[in-house]
């Protein structure tokens, strides 16, 4: 359909080029900026419409927009466009994970040991439940079952943060949802790096790579995160707290970390998350603690989730894989709820279970991690990780709804309607 419209225009343009010297060749593809603006507006309109008419969380609207306009339905966002737009999605994802890392307060675990127990059991139980389900029920080989567990065990800090911002949630369930999702994401990053080594070992006999690649990915991310966070604190310390200049420094340093991580083939999400955690832990003088990312970074989040939506492999859907994915999500949900139920702590059982519901999202991080493995092992990665992809795809839709339900049910979201306007 696109060709039938563009074809005659292209012909006319080419004909004119003989007469008008200043005309460039007919553009073979959309300029990146134009593409970004189209994705932004499309995602925004779909999300606002779904929110206004059906009350859906906006992030869900972005994903739906990506899925509808991506390869599964209309195909307007094709594989080339996804490659072209990927750096922006990486940056958006990185900024959201930086924020998640900055909000992660590890000192809380020392003050409240019940939380430590709860988090450890969430991580261990989720991994084991998914691993055994993938291995015993689905029949994946052990290494790929481990890879599936690594990719899907964690919650999605980016989705959680967007839902919390959107619903202006405040309170203990909210804080714990952030803590649990950030920590499980951190654990998933570590497990993922280890699993990468195992997969290497299975796919080749190159043991040097098997050992060095996880170290490169994990150690590199930590080193870049550490260096850039120190640099950020050093520069920001010379500027007034909460000043616009500090905001620029924070964003610039985050983008620098994204750039270096991409240059060195180190996972961007892990690098930015660690940078956030180090900023939170090492900023004793509260140099950057009061400085927030600009509202505009949510604009990047729209692009991120449109891209995630367009990346979901809906075309490869089979009923069996779908059923397996539902089973995986069920055991994952049970593992998280049981961990929360048994963890005790300074919240009543009902609210702990709501935390368990609130951390169900599984999203961009999982999809990108799965892509990472699929990229490294194109022959088998995509098919072996179909289960993880579908679980992520289902939760891409259900996760935001569950998270918002939990925060609403806990009475922590703002009840008053605010005047329309703004993205969030």
């Amino acid at each position, binding site marked *: 359909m696109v060709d039938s419209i563009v074809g005659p225009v292209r012909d006319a343009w080419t004909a004119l080029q003989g007469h008008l010297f200043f005309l460039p060749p007919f553009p073979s593809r959309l300029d990146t900026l134009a593409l970004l603006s189209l994705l932004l507006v499309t995602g925004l309109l779909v999300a606002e419409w779904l929110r206004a008419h059906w009350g859906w969380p906006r992030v869900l609207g972005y994903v739906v927009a990506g899925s509808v306009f991506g390869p599964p339905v209309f195909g307007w966002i094709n594989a080339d466009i996804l490659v072209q737009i990927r750096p922006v999605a990486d940056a958006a994802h990185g900024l959201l994970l930086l924020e998640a890392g900055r909000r992660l*307060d590890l000192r809380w675990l020392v003050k409240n040991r019940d939380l430590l127990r709860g988090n450890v059991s969430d991580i261990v139980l989720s991994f084991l439940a998914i691993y055994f389900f993938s291995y015993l029920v689905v029949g994946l080989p052990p290494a790929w079952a481990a890879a599936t567990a690594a990719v899907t065990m964690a919650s999605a800090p980016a989705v959680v943060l967007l839902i919390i911002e959107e619903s202006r949630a*405040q309170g*203990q369930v909210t804080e714990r949802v952030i803590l649990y999702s950030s920590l499980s994401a951190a654990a998933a990053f570590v497990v993922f790096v280890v699993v990468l080594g195992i997969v290497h070992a299975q796919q080749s006999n190159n043991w040097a790579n098997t050992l060095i690649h996880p170290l490169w990915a994990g150690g590199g991310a930590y080193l870049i995160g550490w260096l850039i966070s120190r640099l950020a604190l050093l520069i920001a310390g010379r500027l007034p*707290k909460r000043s616009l200049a500090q905001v620029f420094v924070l964003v610039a340093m985050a983008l620098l970390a994204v750039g270096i991580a991409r240059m060195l083939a180190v996972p961007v999400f892990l690098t930015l998350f660690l940078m956030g955690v180090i900023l939170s832990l090492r900023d004793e003088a509260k140099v950057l603690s009061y400085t927030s990312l600009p509202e505009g970074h949510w604009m990047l989040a729209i692009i991120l989730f449109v891209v995630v939506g367009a990346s979901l492999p809906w075309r490869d859907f089979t009923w069996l894989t779908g059923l397996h994915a539902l089973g995986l999500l069920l055991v994952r949900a049970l593992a998280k709820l049981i961990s929360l139920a048994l963890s005790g702590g300074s919240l009543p059982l009902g609210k702990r279970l709501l935390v368990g519901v609130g951390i169900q999202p599984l999203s961009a991080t999982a999809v990108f991690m799965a892509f990472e493995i699929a990229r490294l092992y194109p022959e088998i990665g995509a098919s072996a990780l179909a289960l993880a992809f579908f679980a992520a795809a289902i939760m891409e839709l259900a996760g935001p709804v569950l998270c918002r339900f939990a925060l609403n049910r806990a*009475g922590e979201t703002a009840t008053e309607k605010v005047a329309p306007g703004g993205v969030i």
Partner: protein
Amino acid sequence: MSDALEFTQSEPLTLGVELELQLLTTRDFDLTRGASDLLRAMDYDGRNGDIKLEITESMIEINTLARASVDDIADDLDSLRGVLVEQCARNNITVCGGGTHPFHSWPERRISPGERYEQTYARYGYLAKQFTVFGQHIHIGCATADDAVWLTQALGPYVPFFIALSASSPYVDGVDTYFQSARLNAVSAFPLSGQCPVLADWNDFLAHYEFLRDCGIVASIKDLYWDIRPKPEYGTVEIRVCDTPLSIVPAAALAALAQCLARKLLRERPVFHPGRALQVARYNKFQACRYGFDAQISCPEKRRQEGLRESLASLLDVLGEEAKALGCQRWLDVLRRSLFSGMSDADWLRSRLTVHQNLHDVVRDSMDRFRELRHPAT
């Protein structure tokens, strides 16, 4: 219906203190929603008083038991503070004093669960959220209802002293209000705030209360937001004009001032003209809120103005005998030091802003100050 308001007799000059405190995030020291979760999880046996919800979820109130001495009040406050600090740590929030939060956004406040709070919100709308301000209330025990009504009015002229000594709310909405205590401006928006009218005795108070109730203006004694009011259910007079100080020591010291003053007034029963006092009360209150120790107070008996600082210094001297009898001299010394140094809590907050150049760090310092040791310097 007058039987609904029975005055419970209490031991004269016993004290009780209520402090409304701020619940903050540890991330940026803004107010946060946390009170009901905190209370639900609290493992506390009530040995030193009570910990309660307030109108919004970012506030929490500690109440001491009724005590005969200021030392015991200080012990209660210290213990309640310890419980609160520990419980807050488990929820990764923190607590501090001060009459206002310097930069919170009032529309973000959440009304606490409970029928009373919901009714208040329904009745007063946004005022209820703006009422996220933090005060200290001091109860003084009275032997009879008539004593309580008399003392309520006799304490009226001393309101500016309590305001100036406790002032700790110079910042609202992120700006310096130029007031030492801006908290009371939020209170004065309520229709039943202000001063108690001229009342002859308890029966007169009952008649006034029933009149307001029959006119549909009040439903309970809690609807009277007077600066000082009788509290029949406790058998006390309640002084409600103080900002919550930044630490426990001045809170106990203000209770000492109230106790000494009440003792002197009840013992000497000076002749005074409540009607005249009422005419200058609003002006004097404004002066104390705006200028603190530098206020100029109108004196209706002498028909002239006097400096608050000098009048307060004289009063503290005059109360020396009462303090000796009640065993609370060292607590009055705390107030004397504050007066002579000229450094109220409001001034201290401003000095911290000069150092930090941002209000987040000012609140952080307030949080640290709230954890100070309780005993006054000897």
